[in-house]
């Protein structure tokens, strides 16, 4: 079990993910839910990025010379998780923007952004 410290990072990241998830499902304020989604997603991004790390590696930007010599002596961090997460970040902010636009409209229509108050108003009508 000497290798368990190698998992410590993942555990913290999981705890972060679950904190975000908890905010989403337990809080009734719509903005709070969006905050929760953001934290949940950022933590998933951290999971991806931390799996791409290579001990002793550097960012995958090659010095111009390496093209001529054709040798790859340096160890590089895996570029693929970075690429995936770049895309996922964009998807995340797109979702946030949509969610916030909806919240603005909900507030205009209901005068509140608390889930339970909105539910009550829907029951009344």
């Amino acid at each position, binding site marked *: 079990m000497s290798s368990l410290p190698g998992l410590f990072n993942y555990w913290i990241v999981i705890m972060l993910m679950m904190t975000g998830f908890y905010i989403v499902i337990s809080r009734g304020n719509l903005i709070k839910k969006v905050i929760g989604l953001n934290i949940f997603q950022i933590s998933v991004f951290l999971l991806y990025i931390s799996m791409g790390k290579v001990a002793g590696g550097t960012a995958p930007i090659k010095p111009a010379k390496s093209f001529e010599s054709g040798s790859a002596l340096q160890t590089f961090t895996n570029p693929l998780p970075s690429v*995936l997460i770049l*895309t996922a970040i964009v998807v995340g902010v797109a979702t946030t923007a949509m*969610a916030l636009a909806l919240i603005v409209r909900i507030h205009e*229509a209901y005068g509140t952004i608390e889930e339970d108050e909105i539910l009550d108003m829907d029951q009344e009508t």
Partner: protein
Amino acid sequence: MEQHVPVLVIITPLIAAPLCVLIRHRRLVFAFSLLVCWATFVMTALLLARVLETGVIRYELGGWLPPWGIEYRVDALSAFVMLFVAGIGAVVATYAPHSITREIPSKRHYLFFTQYLLCLAGLLGITITGDLFNLFVFLEISSLSSYALISLGKSRRSLTAAFQYLVMGTIGATFVLIGIGLMYMMTGTLNMADMAERLTGTVAINGQLLVVNETRTALVAFAFLSVGISIKMALFPLHLWLPNAYTFAPSVVTAFLAATATKVSVYILLRFVFTVFGSDLSFTKLPLDLPLMVLSLFGILIASATAIFQSNIKRMLAFSSVAQIGYIVLGISFVSVTGLTGGIVHLFNHALIKGGLFLAMGCLALRLGSVELEALRGMGQRMPLTMFAWLLGGLGLIGVPLTAGFVSKWYFISAALENGWWPVAVLVLVSSLLALVYVWRVVEVAYFQPPLERQSEIREAPIAMLIPTYALIGASILFGIWTPLSAGVASHAAEILFEGMP
């Protein structure tokens, strides 16, 4: 150009969407979108014909070989799903103008068609791709556009419905993202075929040699993917977003999403369970069939029973949709070719039936301004063509012989009896009775009660809306009688899925 058809199917609506923003003019945008939708449909038909003839078609995007690049991979199942998604997309687009003129401010019509095309492109993109992360990206395209489309509903509750769906959908998508990440971590690849291969191989973790699909990480990945997709496809009890979304969205949007979006999510589940993980792992090593069966049976019975007590007919049909998803999943859980054929053919049949029913609801909403049961009184006389279409669709939901619904139920009951599970067969019959009850409530009000005073001026819906409605309802009757294209292709697809990677 013929070798490019797989990518053209996706990029035609994808490029058309920004063009709609540039065109802006309401009528031109409509004409253009219509052309694009039908062209897409023709291309999917070509694809299906070619797949049935020659087998799997691949297309490497950017010219990079998989697993380094992204590949498109079309087999019988994906071509079949794409065919009906694009077909319904085209029919609903044809139907749209009258309905949205009534329900959506005209300044937003071109934006509506932009989102509609994006949603179509997203759904088709999910179905055709052979790459897991690409699937996630297109899932998000279709999701974001459906949130926007739902929020266009007339009532303010469409906004909260869209928000609720957004939160649930994003949780689902994030679960899928976690699942994909863990799978990638264990295999180093994102290509489905490559991953399926590497899952059965071994991997050296921390000095130990492990079989990948026996690792705890792979199992957890499988669990997260299943839960994430179950939210997206509204599998009971994760269906809570669906009734509001379908009830308060504009009629056109409800018809399109009800017929296609959840079906494509089921397709994703099939891809993961059968193609990536393999039926052996999913059902032999993991008892996935049992929870799926229990959840689907509960879903069918509870959702059907709830549907009976709804006074809003769109909501009633929405609960019926949750029940139908249950049937489809039940088909999968039989773990037999017959059951899976039933599941796949019901994807198709239910898409036609429910699409047609919601289009008929759109006709009613156009003339009545309401979709309450009460408002439907006497509509059997006032709007005979619309109500007759509704009646035929309703019969399909019950599963009366000579309708497409009967074909699906036939497969479910045969599969249940094949496995010797006669109680399941009985439950399927009982649930049909529940469907009979909720369909009958509408029929009774529409045909056997006199029209309300204030509705004496109501006329039949315009012919431009009735034709698309009857196209879908007619198709659902046609495929109740003539089944080579539906059940034939479905059983072919089911056999391929059980063989593993094509």
